Structures are given as structure tokens and as C-alpha cells.
């Protein structure tokens, strides 16, 4: 029982990371029906830029926690810019020419380029990321939880709530939702929908970069950290449904927990299998995802 609780607890924080990245996939899919397949690389770049920034700040005699907090806005802005670049170079042309697959290749290609750049700048080795919180695990009813794992869950939830509030409350957020609903009609409202799509890419990469610096302190950082996370989050986005915010959180948690259980009870070698099986199962039974509802549309 104790072990089960332990496995679930540590599965939750990993699952939240998957959820945040998958949430990023949703943001661009909603406005443009396209995805950034370099989302894992956006996460990796965010983490590495964060690493350089935090080390610089610590080098200037800041404490790790305050250095981490000052680093966050730097990483978020970097993520926004990186996402805008991806949209501008890789996606815009494909959307303009109504290309079915152009954006797939373009975002994958950009992802590979980003990875190569990162290997040259930061090297091939996995790097340690300073943890802003004590690394000693807390004992919660016999379950050992790292403070950073709690921070991941809180940070991920806060980010998603912030974006949700932006979408519902601000006129710009409503413009994003309107673009997702009906691009032509949004244009008639005076909304520059092309800009909205660029913005959704920026926001999507920003969430990935944020996930990168959240997860980096409990894993390691490096040019290769993104690929697996990006792919698993993609599975989560499909499992949860590309249109449901709740879906990706639940999907992320399911995958995070199931992975941990499989790793312990079966074999770490099979850790990735159940999630992918679940993906195949969802695709064959409910292709819109567990929580993906058909959009309400009356003509």
C-alpha cells in the first residue's frame, strides 16, 4: 500500500509535466489546427536557457530560490519568442497555402535544428540544474515527496489557470477563442487572426519552456531531454483530447502514474509501453480523446 501510494505520488508530478506540454499542443491546435512537433525542443531550450540564466545569477551571489524566481520571466519571454519564430518560419507558409502536411515537416525540422544548436552550445552531456527548493524529501504519511515535485504540480496548475482566465476574461483572450471557433468570422470582428495564431504558438512554447525549468531540477538538463517528453505529451494530448483542458491534465496524470506502476511492478524496460497502448486504444475507440467533445455547431 505504502509503495503504491509512493508510486502514485511521484507519478503525479511527472504527469503534470506531460499535462502542461500537452496543454501547449492544444493552444496551437485550437487556433490553427496545427501542432508544433518541436514542442519537446521548446521545453529543452527553455530549460537550458534557464540553466545558463540561473547559473549566471547564482554566480552573482544570489540564492538559488531568488535566482530561480528571477530566471522564470527570462525563460517565459524566451519561450514566447521561440514559439513566434517557429510559427513564422515553419507554419505561416503552410497555413497560407493550405498545405496539409507542410507544417508537420517544418516543425519537426525546426525541432532538429534547435536540438543541434543546443548540442553545440551546451554540449551533449546531461547537466545538473540547481534546485530552488530543498532536495530532501518530505515524509507525508510514509510517502516521500520532494518539495520540487509539489512545486511542479502547483506551478503547472497555476499556469493553466492563468491562461484560462486570460481566455475568458480579457478581450484578447476572447479573440483567441473566437479565432479557434471560426477564423473567418473572427476576421470580420476586426481580429488579426494571423497574429492570433502567432501568439498561440508563442504561448505554446512558453508553456513548454516553463515545463522545462519546472522539471529540470528533478531530472537532468541537456539537449536530449525534450524528445521523449514531447512525444509522451503528444500521446497525452491525443488520449485526453486536443480540445479539452481537463482532458490533458487527466491524461497526463494517467500516463505519469501508469508509467511508474509499470516500471515498478513489471519492468522499467516496459515503462513506456502502457501509455502507448492506451494511446492506440483511445485512437481506436474514441478518436476525439477521452474528454474531447464534438464542438457545438448549429447552422
Amino acid at each position, binding site marked *: 500500500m505504502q509503495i503504491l501510494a509512493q508510486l502514485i505520488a511521484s507519478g503525479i508530478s511527472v504527469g503534470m509535466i506531460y499535462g502542461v506540454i500537452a496543454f501547449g499542443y492544444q493552444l496551437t491546435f485550437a487556433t490553427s489546427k496545427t501542432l508544433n512537433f518541436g514542442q519537446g525542443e521548446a521545453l529543452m531550450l527553455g530549460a537550458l536557457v534557464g540553466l545558463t540564466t540561473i547559473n549566471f545569477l547564482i554566480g552573482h551571489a544570489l540564492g538559488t530560490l531568488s535566482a530561480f524566481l528571477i530566471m522564470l520571466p527570462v525563460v517565459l519571454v524566451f519561450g514566447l519568442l521561440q514559439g513566434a519564430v517557429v510559427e513564422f518560419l515553419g507554419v505561416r507558409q503552410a497555413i497560407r497555402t493550405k498545405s496539409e502536411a507542410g507544417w508537420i515537416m517544418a516543425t519537426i525540422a525546426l525541432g532538429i535544428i534547435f536540438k543541434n544548436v543546443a548540442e553545440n552550445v551546451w554540449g551533449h552531456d546531461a547537466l545538473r540544474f540547481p534546485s530552488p527548493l530543498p532536495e530532501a524529501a518530505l515524509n507525508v504519511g510514509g510517502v516521500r515527496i520532494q518539495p520540487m515535485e509539489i512545486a511542479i504540480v502547483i506551478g503547472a496548475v497555476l499556469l493553466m489557470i492563468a491562461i484560462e482566465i486570460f481566455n475568458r476574461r480579457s*478581450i484578447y483572450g*476572447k*479573440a483567441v*477563442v*473566437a479565432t*479557434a*471557433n*471560426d477564423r*473567418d*468570422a*473572427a*476576421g*470580420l*470582428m*476586426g*481580429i*488579426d*487572426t494571423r497574429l492570433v495564431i502567432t501568439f498561440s504558438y508563442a504561448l505554446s512554447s512558453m508553456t513548454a519552456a516553463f515545463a522545462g525549468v519546472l522539471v529540470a531540477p528533478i531530472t537532468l538538463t541537456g539537449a536530449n531531454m525534450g524528445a521523449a517528453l514531447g512525444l509522451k505529451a503528444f500521446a497525452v494530448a491525443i488520449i485526453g483530447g486536443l480540445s479539452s483542458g481537463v482532458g490533458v491534465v487527466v491524461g497526463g496524470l494517467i500516463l505519469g502514474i501508469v508509467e511508474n506502476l509499470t516500471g515498478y511492478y513489471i519492468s522499467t524496460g516496459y515503462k513506456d509501453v502502457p501509455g502507448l497502448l492506451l494511446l492506440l486504444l483511445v485512437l481506436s475507440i474514441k478518436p476525439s480523446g477521452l474528454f474531447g467533445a464534438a*464542438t*457545438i*455547431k*448549429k*447552422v
Partner: protein
Amino acid sequence: MLKVENLVAGYGKVAVLHGVSLDVPAGQLVTLIGSNGAGKTTTLRALSGMIAPASGSIRLGGEEIAGLPSHLITRRGVAHSPEGRRVFPTLPVSDNLLLGAFPRFTGSRPKGDTAADLEKMFDLFPRLRERRAQLAGTLSGGEQQMLAMARALMLNPDLLMLDEPSMGLSPRLVEEVFATIARLKERKITMLLVEQFAAAALQVADFGYVLENGRISTSGPAARLRDDPAVKAAYLGAAH
């Protein structure tokens, strides 16, 4: 207000409009009538930038707007309530209305009092007030039509273009829609009304154009078109 000359437009390589010219003077209600497939909707789509015209001139208050993307045309004061209503289904009624005023929030149109205008829309369409928190996708067809019209009005437009506001509505609702159009006309809102319901449109309009196979075949004061034997036979026969 709006002056269109020799407008040629269509989809892909297929031209639907073969040189349409028309005038919408400030403060007037002009209607564009014609049978299915004549190019009425295409005309409005070209005017609001939803499709790029192949050639021709569209001048709004003297400025050329042909070829501009739709968001820039809207920001210049042209509101288009499109065919099929196109409300935002996952947003509540009130948000749909606020989005109609988007350029006013972002500073590309004079801001004015958006909250007061929202209330005015609810006075004009009381049903929308009852449903203000409801998602637009759950409204009935008639309610969606009212929402689409109210949303366009939220721009405080210099020119309001309505595409088939009566489409798919019950006779009672059609009457209601035309009563609303008449009320907007009293307020001197410049309007371009596209209608298949020619009799009702000519009843309320100042001036009319008849579109036939992508060309203007007849035009004149609405009262005269109502009595024109050719127009009567082609477009008013069944309705009267």
C-alpha cells in the same frame, strides 16, 4: 459612403462577379436582390475582404479598400453580418457581442461606451438579454440571427452589411427581423442589405440593385423597382 466599380471576384479561378458597380450613400438603406447563385453573398464577401477581389475598385469614404484583409476593413468601420450567421458557438452571448466591438477595445475605432451599447443591444433584442450567459451555439436559429446582427452593430459601424437576415426563419421571425431593420434605418445607419425575400427588402429599402449572373441588371429607387414589371415577374411574383 461606399462606391463599388467594376468589381470582379470569385473563388479560385472561377469568377462569380463580372463587373459589379453600386453605390451606398451615407444614411441610406440599399438592398441587393437576386436569385440563388446570382452572386449576392460573393459581393458582400468581396466588400468585407473575406475574399480578395480579382479586379475593380471598392472605395469607402473615398479610400480604396479593395484587397485589404477583412480585419482591416472591419477596423475602418464596415460591419458584416455574414451568411449562415457565424456566431461563436463556444462563447456566451455577451462575449459574442463584445467581440463585435473588438476594434473599439483595441483602439482602432473610437471606444465610446461599450457597456452602454451592450445594454442598447439587449433593449433592441430583449431575447438576447434573457440569454446573455448562454453559449451562442445553444441558441435557436432566430436567436442566432439576432445575435449576428447585434454583434455587427456593436462595432458602431459606418456601414452595416446584412447577408440574408431572414434565412431559415419562421414568418413571424422574418417580420421581426425586418421591423428591426426598419428601426435601424430610422437611426440613419447606412446599410447594404442582401435578401432573397425581395418584396420585404424593397419595402424597407431606399434604393435597390438587382443582381443577375454576377452583373447588375436593374437598379433604381426601391419604390420604382417594386412596380417594375420585370422585377415583379422575376422576384416578387411568389411573395405577393
